[in-house]
Structure formats: C-alpha cells, structure tokens
C-alpha cells in the first residue's frame, strides 16, 4: 500500500484555482521530484501534505493518517511528515542543539538526555556534530539548511517534504545540502521534493512529477521523461531551463 495517497485534491486561493484535482501515490522509500514553472501549484501541493495549506476537496492519506478538507488539527499527521524550507527557518534564539531538540522534548516529551543523544546523532548524520553549541547566525546557509534537515529528522518522520531547499543558497553551498539529501534517499527515506535542480532530480529521483496549471501534466521515470517528454509543455519547460 502506498505511504502517501492523494485523491482528487482541489485548492483555491480566493478565485484562483491552484490545484485542479491532483491524484498521486507515493510508495515508501521513493524519491519524488516535483517540477514545473512558478505558479504551477507544486509548492502548494507540497504544503497541503502537512497541512500548511488547507484544501477544499479531496483527501490526503499519509501512513494511515487521513487529512480531510478544512482540517486544522494536524498534529498526529505532522509527526509523520517532516518539512524543510527554502529559508531554513531555524529558531534564531536557540543554539543548533536546542533547535534539533526542541520538538522532541516539547512535542514527543522525550527526556533531555535522550533528546540530546538523538540530536547529536542527527547532527552527525548531516556532518555538523561539532556545531551543537553554535547559533544559527554563526553558520553558513548550507550549514543552516543541514541543521534544518537534522531538526526534521529528529522527529523520525516517515516522509520528508523539501520545498526548494537549495534555492536560497549560494551556488557553492548547494552540493553539501544535496549530498545529505542523497544519503537520506540511499537510506530509504521517502522524499517529496520541489526542486529546480534538474540534474539532481534526474540522478536521485525515482519519479518525476511535472505540474502545469494546477494539474499533474506528466509523471514517470525521470530518465525517460527528460530524454523523451511526451507533452510540448514539459519539452518546453526542460528546454527553458537548460
């Protein structure tokens, strides 16, 4: 059974119909790359999966947790879905260690000692073990984003949503973040990524989803789609970014 199942999803911003009936199934361990022009609805789709955006029609299911239209109590679902943002969004008043420990102690009520162990393990995984006591403003953008990944992983999510996580980074810092994501993918983490890194999507993605005007316009194996797009829209999109 699919880990994430999205059926007939519709979303409006006022009179703007941004998601026009999305159906998508994601198996455990898959890496999904969501691509498309800005305004195509890819970020909105990602944000509905952990309830940062509500929707009017359809259903989302993540690991047995159902999400219905207009629902606002999402805490059970959000424990299963981690999210990483374009702007990192670390808590500036907390140290790196406290950033990673906050949700495990406050939400999961894990004791301080154990939470610290989890935090150190996760920071080790993203290569920032020695930054435990640093503050976010002492880190580079790439390091901040890796802390954000560690912070999401500490909650042991089943799915990780990545919303253009390298778009705010200087070009030389992109690779250190992508390397971490690649490791996660290799370890079997289920990832749904909105990304402009086409080479990465092609290399690491199991499935490419091309969104256009609020619909999934084309989806399938990344290699096939990149080399042989079936629709003029995808062909145009690929052409425009190369």
């Amino acid at each position, binding site marked *: 059974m699919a880990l994430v199942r999205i059926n007939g999803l519709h979303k409006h911003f006022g009179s703007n119909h941004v998601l026009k009936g999305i159906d998508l199934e994601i198996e455990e361990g898959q890496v999904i790359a969501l691509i498309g022009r800005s305004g195509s609805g890819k970020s909105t789709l990602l944000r509905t999966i*952990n*309830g*940062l955006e509500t929707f009017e029609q359809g259903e989302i299911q993540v690991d047995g947790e159902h999400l219905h239209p207009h629902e606002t109590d*999402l*805490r*059970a679902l*959000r*424990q299963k*879905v*981690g*999210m990483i*943002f374009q*702007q990192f*969004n*670390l*808590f*500036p*008043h907390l140290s790196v260690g406290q950033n990673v420990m*906050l*949700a495990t102690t*406050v*939400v999961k009520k894990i004791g301080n000692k154990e939470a610290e162990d989890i935090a150190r393990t996760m920071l080790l995984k993203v290569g920032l073990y020695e930054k435990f006591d640093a*503050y976010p403003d002492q880190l580079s953008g790439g390091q901040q984003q890796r802390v*954000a990944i560690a*912070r*999401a992983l500490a*909650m042991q999510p089943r799915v990780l*949503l990545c919303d253009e996580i390298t778009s705010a980074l200087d070009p030389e810092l992109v690779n250190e973040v992508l390397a971490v994501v690649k490791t996660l993918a290799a370890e079997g983490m289920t990832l749904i990524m909105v990304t402009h890194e086409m080479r990465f999507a092609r290399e690491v993605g199991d499935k490419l989803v091309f969104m256009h005007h609020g619909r999934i316009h084309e989806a399938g194996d990344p290699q096939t789609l990149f080399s042989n797009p079936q629709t003029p829209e995808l062909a145009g999109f690929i052409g425009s970014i190369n």
Partner: protein
Amino acid sequence: MAYAFDFSSVLEYREALLAGTVKTLGLTAVGAVCGLAIGIFGAVSRAWRLAPFDRIFTAYVELIRNTPFLVQLFFIFFGLPSLGVQINEWQAAILAMVVNLGAYSTEIIRAGIEATPRGQIEAAQSLAMSRAQLFRHVVLPPALLKVWPSLCSQVVIVMLGSSVCSQIAAEELTFAANFIQSRNFRAFETYFIVTGIYFLLAIAVRQAMIQAGQRLIARRAR
C-alpha cells in the same frame, strides 16, 4: 539674591526617604511583573485574534491609553468601595499600576509578536508543535527580546508615574517628600534630593531590567 541651601534639614528625615524609596520600588516590581504578564496574554490575544479576549483587550487598551493615570487611580480607589469592594491605598496603587502597565505592554509586546517571520511559525507547525507550544518556545522569546528596550522604558515611566499614588495617601517616595517639606519648610532641598533619588532609581531599574532581559530571554553566552 542668595539662597542658602540647607540639606541637613532633609537628611534628618532619611528614614522616611528610605521607606518611601523602598515602597516605590516595591510598587514598581509588583506592577512590572503582573503588568508584563497581562501584557503577554493581551498581546497574543490581539495578535492572534483569540476570541473573545482580543475584543476585551482592544477595549481595555483603548480605555487605559486614553485616560490619565491619576484618574485611573481615583477611579479604582474611590470607585471600587462604592461597589462594595474594600480596598486600601496600597491595593489601589498596585492595581492601578498593573492595569496601566498591562495596557501599554500589551501594545508593545504585540508589535514583537507580529514581527515574527511567517516561516518560523510554519517550521514549528511542521514539527507538530501545538499553538501553545510554538507560542511559548518559538514566538515569545524573540518577540520579548525585540521589544525589551521599549518594555524597560515603559516600566520606568510607570515607576515615575507612581508618584501620583501619593494623592491617595500611599506612602511612597513622593508622599515622603510632601511629608518632609511640610515639616521642615525646605521644599527646594527636599525635592532636589527626591528628584535625585528618582533619577538614580530610573537608571538603576532600566539597567537591572536590561541585564535581566539578557539573562532570562537571551540566554546566549557570548
């Protein structure tokens, strides 16, 4: 025209001055702690539109900010007994200061809460934090840190404003000054010294609060 200063006639009453100073500081401390607590609650109610508290606090803030402190004090001291609530001058003074500071700090802290970047809240939500948890751990500390200098100033303003509590016979520093100059007929010297005490108190309170803010809110060893 030479005026012969005679401070010794004031210093004879140093115990009264000290007692008044302690009372003024006490009023300020209680007023600050309770006023800031009300301010935090009022601020989040208004910023996050928590019905029905948002409307209640809007009305409260407007009422307090648009009336004089002395009138608020008289309203409490003379008004509440008419409703059958027995209240002495200290209770009235503290209540007036808490109510006054609560309104101003509601507005100050609200500005800090509203300056929270949207992404901070979304990050906390995506970590499955409840509204109360994310307010307590993610929104409030940086918000207080941002507006702390304004809050310190407001507490000092309220401390200086507490001098009007002498009007309901609360024996704080200004009351002591009135008392002393009515005895020694040395008004100039008396208010000279009391002015100096207020000045030093104001600086000391502001410094103490800034230090406390660094310790309690910032908790950053740098």
